């Protein structure tokens, strides 16, 4: 018969040593005679570090990020992020595609912000081609970018709340996302992977009555923001789990090259929409929210405020949307209407050239940056005069923002790593490309 073993746990201390380090509770195992089977472990923790691995398949890493953490007790000493698990060769594929054919890839690289990427790509290609787009197209693109900013921040909100332990905001934010999906579906026919732009215009003009739908969304969405605000901003658990975490001072944030809400939460009012305006953003009336402490809580506040500002911009767009053509009148890049392509020789040639060879920009290079929900998103093109870019490069804001995570998590507890990582708003598709 097996002898009964007892385990005594000595809970003599509150779990902290005199200098505030977590103390290991001695665990004594013994047989009937009470003889210890093993030496009790030493109480000194110094120099005894543990390596743990989070990811690459872990729900709280928002994709396939892998973090290797060196822990002293529960405190993080060092954090090494490993990226590359979602490298899909976007930039290489771009070298084998015509400009309009690359647009479907831009959907899938920062997939929370698909339609915003489409616009950013088209802006870059148009600068390369030297095309000035129409007024209606500009306003439509602003609508697209702001809808996409709202959609992206909503996913950030929902997943971060799940990470920190609140489930309801996830359901609220996905309900609102469904409304945005419905709008996008009515406009371009797809929910998530929109491919909405073309060089020189949009794939489609908005259908009749679409603006009514947008108006409805703009009028009901603030209620959700209000609910989220009321539920989280003064919630003791939320505040306790976010304040003072992952602080970046303004200087550090600038030195790390952060952008977007991460940078603004640290108190630097840099917004590409204000500082290097595109799509006539300088004529819209909106504020750039700026935080003071640069911690996780401030990033949350900045993003919620950005939701409100995006609604403001959308309201102005609805008011000013002009009539007129969406696409530029330039047969080099835009397909002729079908009735002309089947009846006029000129148009047929343009159609043939456009489809078979693709539009050809002049030799040169250009860089275009826009304010994506995650920060400064840039596209860089090098053209050798052919219909395909010689090099297409993406500047992913979340990659640069992620580079600050070793600095931000140092000295924090293991459970705070999840909150800090969530606050960066990473998208692995964009980071690994």
């Amino acid at each position: 018969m097996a002898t009964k073993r007892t385990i005594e746990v000595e809970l003599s201390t509150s779990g902290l040593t005199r200098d505030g380090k977590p103390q290991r509770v001695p665990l004594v195992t013994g047989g009937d005679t009470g003889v210890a089977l093993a030496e009790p472990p030493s109480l000194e923790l110094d120099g005894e570090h543990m390596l743990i691995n989070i990811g690459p398949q872990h729900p709280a890493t928002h994709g396939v990020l892998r973090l290797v953490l060196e822990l002293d007790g529960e405190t993080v000493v060092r954090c090494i992020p490993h990226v590359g698990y979602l490298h899909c060769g976007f930039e290489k594929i771009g070298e084998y595609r015509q400009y309009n054919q690359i647009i479907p890839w831009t959907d899938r690289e920062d997939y929370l912000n698909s339609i915003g990427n489409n616009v950013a790509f088209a802006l870059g290609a148009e600068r390369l081609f030297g095309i000035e787009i129409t007024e209606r197209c500009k306003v439509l693109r602003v609508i697209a970018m702001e809808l996409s900013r709202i959609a992206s921040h909503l996913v950030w909100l929902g997943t971060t709340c799940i990470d920190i332990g609140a489930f309801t905001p996830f359901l609220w934010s996905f309900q609102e996302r469904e409304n945005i999906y419905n709008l996008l579906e009515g406009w371009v026919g797809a929910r998530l992977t929109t491919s909405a732009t073309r060089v020189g215009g949009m794939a489609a003009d908005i259908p009749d009555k679409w603006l009514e739908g947008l108006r409805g969304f703009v009028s009901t969405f603030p209620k959700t923001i209000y609910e989220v605000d009321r539920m989280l901003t003064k919630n003791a658990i939320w505040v306790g789990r976010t304040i003072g975490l992952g602080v970046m001072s303004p200087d550090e944030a600038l030195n790390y090259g952060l952008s977007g809400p991460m940078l603004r939460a640290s108190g630097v009012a840099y917004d590409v929409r204000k500082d290097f305006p595109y799509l006539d953003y300088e004529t819209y009336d909106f504020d750039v929210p700026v935080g003071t402490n640069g911690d996780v809580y401030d990033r949350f506040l900045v993003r919620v405020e950005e939701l409100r500002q995006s609604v403001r911009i959308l309201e102005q767009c609805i008011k000013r949307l002009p009539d007129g053509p969406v696409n530029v009148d330039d047969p080099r890049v835009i397909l002729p209407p079908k009735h002309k392509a089947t009846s006029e020789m000129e148009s047929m040639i343009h159609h043939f050239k456009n489809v078979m060879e693709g539009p050809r920009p002049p030799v040169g290079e250009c860089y275009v940056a826009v304010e994506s929900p995650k920060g400064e998103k840039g596209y860089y093109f090098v053209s050798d005069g052919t219909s395909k870019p010689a090099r297409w490069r993406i500047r992913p804001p979340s990659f640069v923002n992620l580079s600050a995570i070793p600095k931000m998590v140092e000295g924090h507890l293991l459970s705070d790593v999840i909150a800090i990582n969530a606050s960066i708003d990473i998208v692995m598709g964009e980071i690994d490309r």
Partner: protein
Amino acid sequence: MGLTSIPHSASPENASSGPEIISIEPKGGDGWVTTRLDFLVNWGRSNSLWPMPFGTACCAIEFMATAASKFDLARFGMERMSFSPRQADVLICAGRVPFKLAPIIRRIWQQMPQPKWAISMGACASTGGMFDNYAVVQGIDTIIPVDVYVPGCPPRPEGLIYGIMMLQKKIMTERMSNKSIRDEMEPDPSSKLYIPASRIDEISEPFGNSVHQTRSAP
């Protein structure tokens, strides 16, 4: 029942020359009790599937939309997302799987206890999709056995739900008397490979590989 021999292929040309598989089934066959028991077990299994979401890319966002309030996976007994493979029944691979991630999905599959099923969500997981290049696995069925493929880029939530219902139907047809239903391929002990090396060379050849296309249009 006893010993039965089934020709390897039903087509008449191969019937005479092809190899024969001998299957041994338990005595008694599918009686009333076993089929009722099967029905009960399958009914229980199919309506309480615990999914292990292996979400990598854009399809994972649609997967989240499926789990959220409008489409509500809880209606199918699947609201309990199991983020640990050891407590999961069905692996839902949502998104593209590059080669760097391939060993991980294989390992997660091996960590899942039997009975287990797999759904491949989206064009990328099923075939590599639009990522026809050096980096991406051309279909996760080269790594793990897949039960249901859901097409789309990304599939709509309704599409995923339809795939899940197909899986539930498939589970309802399982028979406990079929001993080979959970057999998995074992690697060849000498080479440690699952399929012969010549076949691997054949499928890893660049086929229709986009980045091998010439930049034809000048």
